């Protein structure tokens, strides 16, 4: 996993981190562009509110990366970029990553001192995400 992004409901980044500093900008551009697909998928999902799946699956892939998406009920998006070379990673594991990320995020925003919509500066959250990222690198 080379990039993790938490993006607010207004599409502004709330938390961005990467393990690949050299490609950081490039990845950010791609994550930003992936929002297009997120919006597309959310639009399709709007018709059926019951079977709402938070996990959006593969948003798109490039030669080197696969970009996966997840959107919470409050329209906060998680985007994870995974190296294409990591073929061992299965869909289920990606789901698990998002589930964990969702839990971490929920814990972080449950902090009464956190103002909804602001960027996530919690060190604990950062540490946990870094751990999550290195665990699946």
């Amino acid at each position: 996993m080379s990039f993790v992004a938490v993006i607010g409901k207004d599409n502004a980044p709330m938390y961005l981190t990467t393990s690949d500093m050299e490609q950081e900008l490039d990845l950010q551009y791609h994550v930003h562009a992936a929002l297009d697909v997120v919006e597309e998928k959310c639009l399709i999902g709007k018709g059926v509110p019951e079977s709402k799946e938070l996990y959006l699956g593969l948003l798109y892939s490039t030669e080197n990366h696969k970009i996966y998406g997840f959107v919470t009920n409050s329209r906060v998006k998680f985007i994870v970029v995974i190296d294409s070379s990591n073929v061992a990673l299965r869909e289920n594991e990606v789901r698990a990553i998002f589930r964990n990320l969702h839990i971490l995020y929920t814990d972080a925003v449950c902090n009464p001192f956190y103002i909804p919509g602001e960027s996530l500066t919690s060190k604990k959250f950062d540490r946990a995400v870094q751990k999550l990222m290195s665990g699946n690198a």
Partner: protein
Amino acid sequence: MQIKPIITYSGSCPLFRSLESQILNAIPLDTCEWRRTFQRPTKHVRLEAQTLQFNVAPLEKYKQGDWSILEHPILHIFVTECNDVDTYKATIREEIDAWLKVLTSYGISDWMILLVETLDMRKTKNFMPRTTVLDKIRLDFGTKNDDRCISVLNPAKFEQKSTESFRCLVQRIRFLMLTSYNRNIVKYEELIRSKREKRNHEGWDFRQYFFMQEDLALIFEKLELPTEALIQYDELDAMFSQFIMHTGFNEKQQWLSHFKRPLSAFHGICLTRLDKFEMREKIREEGVSLLEFRNYLFERQAYLLLTSNEIPEIAKRLLDFLFSTLREVEFIKLECQEGALCCWEFVCALEVLQLCEQAMEPNEVTCFQHCAPIWNLAKDKLYELGKLCGLLPGCTPTSEQLHIVVQLSSGIGDAPPDQQQQFLQATPQLRDRSPNRKPKKSAAQQLKEALGSNQAFQKLYLELAELAISTYKHVTRLRSARLVGLDLGNFYCSLNEPHKAVGFFTDLLRELKAENWHMLSSQTLLELANCYRKMGDSLAYTKTCSSISCCVELETLVRTFYFDEFLKSLKTLKTTLSAQPSSENANFCVLEDHFRILDIEVLNQKPIIQDDHVLVQLKVESLYPRGIVAETIKLCYELQATPLEVAMENVSLTATPSAPKVKESASRLKVELQLVYKQDNRLHSASVACDMPKSKQPVRRTSSTKRKLSPSVQGDFTNFVQAENIALQPGVNCIELKAKATRVGNWQFKQLCVSMSSLEFLSEQLPFAAPCFEISTKPASASLEFKTLIAGIVQPISLNVSGGSFIFPPDAKITLRCSKNLRLRLALDTKDTPPRDDATFESLLQVPLLQFKSFEERSIALEVLTDMPGRKVSKHHELHIALSCPWSRTELQIPIEFQPAMEATCRLHTCGTQKFLQVIMKGLDAHLLLHHAKVKCDVPGVQLLDLNPMPQQPIEIYKSLTVTYLYEIQVEPLKTEHELPIVKVHFVIKYATLTQPEVWRSYGCAFDLVDYTTLFKLQAQLEPNELCRLRTVCNMNLKISKVHENPYTDLMYEVLNDQNLWAVCGRSAGVVSMKDVDSHSISLDVMPLSTGFLPMPSIRLSKYTAGGKSKTDAHSKVHPFPPGQVYNSTKSMQIHVIASVAENL
């Protein structure tokens, strides 16, 4: 390669051959219902077939489990034209029997016996039932398979009559073929499964397996089941990937080495191949590279998708196909020339794009959703190749690079030129989009041309980039489109056409800024700055430098560099700006990019008075890395449209010291404490609740709003507060802005404008509810406030002064002038001060307004005192106070009313000839002490004797309490009433309030005594005097005697009895003359009507004037005497009445 199900024939082969073409042509003419096993849906299938003479060899393979469903005969037909039962019995039966035995020995039950009738048996009616050959055959072989034995009229001989029977035959053949497929497919699938199980065994060869399963796919395809065919290919695809990626280096997989051949050729996929199986043969015969194998697999999948009309799926699968193949190539470490894979990807991408473009309507968004990234990929790959081959702008290929181009070009290969369109024509839904357009060059050709020259390369690159952008836009993936724009912009930059790049960069910048991707937007700014510098657009360059220097995401070094650039450029701007007329408002910048408005606070006390100065404290954070001087800072304000109440609220918010926090908390959730009590008031539960209306969402939405890069609207700057030449340090600055309040009204701040040189930084929108302030002018006023005032004692009254917008001089005062009998003084605050003398009351009072400020409201306590009115008057005292105020020249007269504290009345009482004066003091509103009551009479000969007890203690008097003083009047006999018709008596008393018992004030009252002499005396007597009985007539003697000489001669008496108590018998009134008589006695009969002590019937005596002769006063007149002139000595006598005797009985 032909794929047609095989039918074998045996028996009378020449006969069959004569029918063969007719049968084979007839089979595809109609469809047949295919009932499939395992509840799969039935399907109508059009079949084809080929025929072979019966041969055991394929059956041998079938038995060994080494067969292919493609080559396996699907139906075996035995043909005979034997019409003679005997011949049948002699030879044919055995032939059939032998044939069937062979089949059974191979486990095959897909057979059919065809009896061709050359003679029309039905004509001859001498047949016995069950004696025809067909019957015999059925009897012998078709006990269970009745339908497998069929006869047909030879169509060669009975052209007309055979049609029906021939149709039945063909239908039967179709049906039996499908039945056979049902069986054989299941069997074949089992075979495939068992083969697959062995895939890790030694000697297992993927290629064999591949063909085996592909045969099934081909059969499915033949049977018009493309999706099921596709499943076979997908399984093969997945299996292959598995091998490569997971078990790739296992020694057992020897077959893998076949695919490991170096990639000397890297042809892309070709979706317009004429011979679909060209590659299949090659795989089988020579072996192919991984790339070729993959190509073939994808082509097949694409073809099947195309037949099932799922073109978008082809596009969807492409990228996955490309990327996974790349990974496989990498994984098994295939040798290949640099750039070869790029070429391959490019050609594949373009091939699919051409297909989609031709096949799809523009509104089929799903397809274009997949196409857009493919365009982008093609663009990227071309760029990579351009870089490799020295084709990028500004480069010229070296000889080495030219060599690479030659090598790549040969590796790309050619698409067979005349094979085009063939593939497309097979599918009816494809059409030529624009007939006028030149036929598109094949992907390979385009690539070769592009690699051929720099110009061609640029042209193709730009074309692809534009197509990628427009396709992304078409499917509303704007962000992606902008990202492609970034590449395109960079390309234009390297083409040295920065003016073309600017548009793409600004689009991207807008998108990124709108969604607060600061890091990316600052990068884009750097690109833009580069462009503007190259273009020589100094204004835009200056603005961009300024923005960059404020990007906190960038490194300080970069920021300071651009800050210096900004300052440098700013200096030169003045001259250049005047030189080149740029578009309007080009010098506007977005203030929010450079400064952050933290707080705006009005420093004045509210409200602001017209012509005063408005002072505003602006707290602004400068994002510049160093200090900078702003020439002017203006904050404009506009008349407010919202109601005043809200505005005032806002002012009060900002006035509190914690103002910024209040603003921040606007985005916090409003959480409230909720306590729920039980019925007995004990706490049941405590909770917090967030009762937030949906309309007020805490999070601001910006995604939909398109944020401008440069504001084009300057607000109305007719009213503004400003500061000049302000040095703004990095971080928070507090600036005081000032202006004269000229116009009255409620104002709200709208826009902030910071000017530096010729640049104007304008705010988009103030980040919080802009504070409001009021400029006003208001008249001053003064009024008196009092409750019911009581005359005679000190009363509080307050002077209320409302300052308004009047500016008071330091020695301002209000003069109060009282009307007569009214005096004022200032009240003292403390109660401990000794009571002051009444002399401190003045009728003209000056109230100083010390330090009186505008809009102050002050209440000044005064005390007012007025004399108690001497006589009882019906009206209240009406007095007034006139105010003269510093702001007005006219006097303001305020009427003021008093009610008396008490009132005095007097009554004259008579006892025979003695006269008494009773003074009654009636308490009203005040609570007072009375003391030293005195009467005075200055009339000579009149003496007043004080009958009140001595010495007098102060007496309290209050509301509804009366105090009475009694005096006897003695008038000297000589002084008759003739001489003194009126005696004036002065009553004087001292009073004090309970609160100030030591301050005694005087109250005086004058009474006029008239008719104070007794003229007549009345006496009444009842007889019998004792024991009056009820309803017994008594005699009442009335005696009127003259006491004092007087002029009244005719008197009238009336008995005024209570009708319940007394009844007068006879006359109750009469007139007597007192002329020359001193007394008169009258006797009347009265009867008591009630028992008990009854009051004597009262008698009224009046002056009587008899009516005269004249008409005018024909009537007699009766005038009552005033109470002092008649004395009734028996007035209050009571008579004891007892019950009558009769009643007692």
